[in-house]
């Protein structure tokens, strides 16, 4: 019974966390003992209200945990790959990232991705759109060469329209000359 209660609480907490993300509220409350007693009471009341069959609860929990891991995995793997000025060929140092993106896509057959091509601000807007597209396409082609179906990859260019960094130096320009991966839902 206790386990079920805890699971129910967890489910409630997870569903709560999805709606209102208030990471700063909870640690502030925790140290104060009297208040933590009160919260326990409230939680008990709420448990009574939650009347979800056990199977469904477990299913929900499974779903939630699976989603989290896929997203977490994507977050770890989907690092931007960077390009040289006015170039769109894949650098050697980008290959390990692309290899992991490909194996991730092999594991997660249901997921599709978009590749966004970006440029630094020094070029002119229209030419940068074309250049950004070239970068996104060469990234896509590399993944396709590793066996990923082309249909699973959408390509879009943003040229110099979405800058990560706005300083006028090479470090910043380098961060902006990138291909960025996004999981499509």
């Amino acid at each position, binding site marked *: 019974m206790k386990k079920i209660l805890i699971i129910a609480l967890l489910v409630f907490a997870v569903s709560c966390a999805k709606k209102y993300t208030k990471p700063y509220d909870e640690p502030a409350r925790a140290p104060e003992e009297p208040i933590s007693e009160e919260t326990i009471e409230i939680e008990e009341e709420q448990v009574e209200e939650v009347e979800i069959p056990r199977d469904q609860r477990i299913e929900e929990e499974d779903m939630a945990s699976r989603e989290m891991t896929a997203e977490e995995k994507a977050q770890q793997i989907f690092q931007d790959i960077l390009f040289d000025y*006015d170039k769109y060929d894949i650098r050697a140092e980008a290959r390990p990232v692309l290899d992991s993106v490909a194996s991730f896509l092999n594991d997660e057959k249901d997921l599709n991705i*978009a590749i966004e091509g970006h440029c630094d601000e*020094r*070029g*002119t*807007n*229209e*030419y940068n*759109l*074309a*250049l950004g*597209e*070239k970068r996104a*396409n060469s990234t896509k082609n590399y993944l396709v060469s590793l066996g990923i179906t082309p249909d699973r990859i*959408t*390509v*879009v*260019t*943003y*040229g110099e*329209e*979405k800058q990560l960094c706005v300083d006028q130096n090479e470090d910043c320009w380098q961060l902006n000359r990138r291909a960025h991966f996004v999981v499509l839902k």
Partner: protein
Amino acid sequence: MNTNIRLQITDCRLQTIDSRLETYTGKALRTDNTHKFFLFFVCVLYSVFFVLSNADAKIYIDITSPGIRQLPVTVTAKGTARAKELEWIAKADLEATGMFSFVDPDVPGAEIIADMDVDTHNGLQVVLSVIDQIEGREVLKKRYDASKLIIRPMAHSIANDIYKVATGKKGVFRTRITYLSTLPSGNKGISLMDWDGFNSVRIVTRGLNSSHSWTQDGKYLLFSAERNRKWRIYILDLKTLKESILYSSKGLNLVGGTSTDGLVSFSSSRDGSSEIYSINTFGKKMKKLTRSFGIDLSPVFSPDGEKIAFVSDRSGGPQIYTMDANGKSINRLTFEGSYNTSPAWSPDNKWLAYSGRIDGKNQIFVVKSDGSETWQITMTGNNESPSYSPDGLFLAFDSDRDGERSIYIMRNTGEGQRRITKKGSQAMSPRWSPYFNE
């Protein structure tokens, strides 16, 4: 010999109303103050009655001859309090051309005296009288009658008439400029303003917008926008502000320019690499004009419709090329520097303005369309996206010389450079309208 002419003129202008909408959502009772802009046309009917005192008008300034002199003029307005406003706006228009020097009314020396008699009691009525001081006769008398107090367009019309008397040419003071403006979301929308930067209104607020081009009749704007990760070409009716898709395919589709016979040039990467195409304004009769491995884009028709200038990186970096309108006889035009983009034709087909990279900055250059002569006409900051006025006298462009990018204008020689949008307005890529039928 006097010619009496009566005209009825409808002046239609976009106006903006700013209203605040409050939305309450959920338990949290969140309040959003959203600015909603409604655009609508206000049409003011005004009649013009004018007398041209002789049919063969004398030309005071021959703008086709090199080293033109400045014509000394006196421009005054009298009447109600708003009269001075009319005077200032008209004078600013004329001054921008660099062709006039202004002489105070009580000082002798003016060859032409333009006098406005202004009445604002019921709408706006102006009687303009232009006198040739040397010959001592009135060369133009014109009455303007507007049902509403529309100071700025009236002043621009008057400036056009004074300019016409002095040069025999049509002025551009009633033309407009579209440009990319930064929306609160950070995306770029499209705005429309008077030639001097006033009366700016947003006309496209959806998606992320890029290249745009007027149709030659001034009634439509073609533009490229990214919405839901798709870059399409749209056509916007400037009277109703209704838009429809002109061209859609996978890849990047960017509109270049339009021709007088109703063609649109654009670039598309539908087949993989970005190539030049033409299509008509109904989205039909598409023709593929280039075939190269690299990037071909920014195609613009020459005003006579014979040629297309475009950007290609077939030689390595981006350079300006020209070709016949059917894609034949491709000719490289720029050889200086490694980054030349954004070509724009002068209305007489003789020059192309473009943006070229020199010493790490983008500057505006003009090159003769046969490649025989090149001039750099901006020097400070980054200067991009040149666009000629329909008379070829001015160029609009964007620059970051004062911080954030803003729209500037200058004469085609590089003289008289000035900012016309607010400092820090994050405005770019101006496109000058054709003449409107007034």
